[in-house]
């Protein structure tokens, strides 16, 4: 009788485990890129990836198909990573900027036509890491090739706000990475916070 009663639970656990294998297999690399966007220190980043995977595995108990597995995975990953950033904020004194400010923020290398591959990746991360978590999520989703609707579903922003942010992301990328760009203005102090 006990064996029969345990069957549904065992089945649910197997479901969770197989969903986890599927999610980790499909989105493993994307999750690593996401973790890199939130944590620059390689050792701490490995811990963050593990934390995301544990949170994902635990959460899949409650996965009921109301959203796609991809949306679920990204929500868990972003929420875990943002909590990680909030914890690190309490320890350090790092401030983040919004996309509005990032448009005006120079990184000193604008307009260089022949930038090495590694440099470009590093500069992308340098840009992403200075953004507030919500803007960072939109930026990561954009770079991962997600459409505005998926980004809105993950972040909870309205489609209109996602569209505005994507417009600003394009402006930032244009200033930072296109030849001929030239943002030289300094960064204003107002509006920096953890959000």
């Amino acid at each position, binding site marked *: 009788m006990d064996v029969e009663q345990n069957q549904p639970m065992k089945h649910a656990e197997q479901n969770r*485990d197989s969903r*986890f*294998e599927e999610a*980790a297999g499909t989105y*493993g*690399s994307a999750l*690593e*890129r996401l973790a890199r966007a939130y944590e620059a220190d390689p050792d701490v980043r*490995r811990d963050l*990836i*593990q934390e995301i*995977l*544990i*949170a*994902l*595995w*635990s*959460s*899949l*108990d*409650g*996965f009921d198909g*109301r*959203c796609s597995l991809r949306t*679920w*995975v990204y*929500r*868990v990953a*972003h*929420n*875990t990573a*943002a*909590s990680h950033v909030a914890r690190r904020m309490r320890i350090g004194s790092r401030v983040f900027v919004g996309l509005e400010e990032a448009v005006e923020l120079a990184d000193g290398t604008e307009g260089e036509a022949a930038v090495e*591959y590694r440099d*470009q*990746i590093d500069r*992308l991360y340098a840009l992403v890491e200075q953004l507030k*978590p*919500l803007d960072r*999520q939109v930026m990561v989703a*954009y*770079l*991962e*090739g997600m459409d*505005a609707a998926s980004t809105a*579903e*993950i*972040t*909870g*922003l*309205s489609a209109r*706000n996602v569209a505005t942010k*994507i417009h600003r992301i*394009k402006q930032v*990328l*244009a200033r930072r*990475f*296109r030849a001929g760009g030239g943002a030289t203005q300094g960064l204003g102090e107002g509006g920096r*916070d953890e*959000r």
Partner: protein
Amino acid sequence: MNDESPQDRELKELWQNQKTEGVRMSVAEIQASAGRFQRRIQGRNLREYVAAAAVVVFFAFEFWRAGDVLVRAGFALLIAGMCYLAWQLHARGSWSALPRDAGLSTYVEFKRRELERQRDALSSVWRWYLGPLVPGLVVLMIAFGRANPGHLPHMWLAVGVYGAAVAALFIWIGRLNSAAARKLQKEIDELDEGGQ
């Protein structure tokens, strides 16, 4: 996003094709790590209980040593206040695993809940953090003033100054927390704007 420039496409490709470390965890490894994480939380909770117990034991010792009824009543109230405060700190503790429904919540919902929790804790600091200690402290101050009438020529003045200093400290802590709660409310409002 059809108006995407070739440069934007290149950047996306660059981002998506970058080399990753290939960090993988099997279900067995995940289960072991989740267990370790749970034990860390339990260990942290245990340390909190031990710290609270040490303070309560100290007050209990003073209660036992005191001869005066009012002093004893003061320490008894302080013990009760400390127990309530420790329970509240535990119940409101933020260091925990991510909620299991994290995948159901968008970032805005998730962050809003967290900010609301912090705001409520800060704005009600008199009710659960400062307030519970006040009766014990007041009774103890009265008891000390009453129990030593001839010990100091201006005992009541000393008690009054001490009481005023404690009250000023409590009011200052309360105001700091109210200001922090208002800042959090501003962040909540900004989040709400983003969701509209």
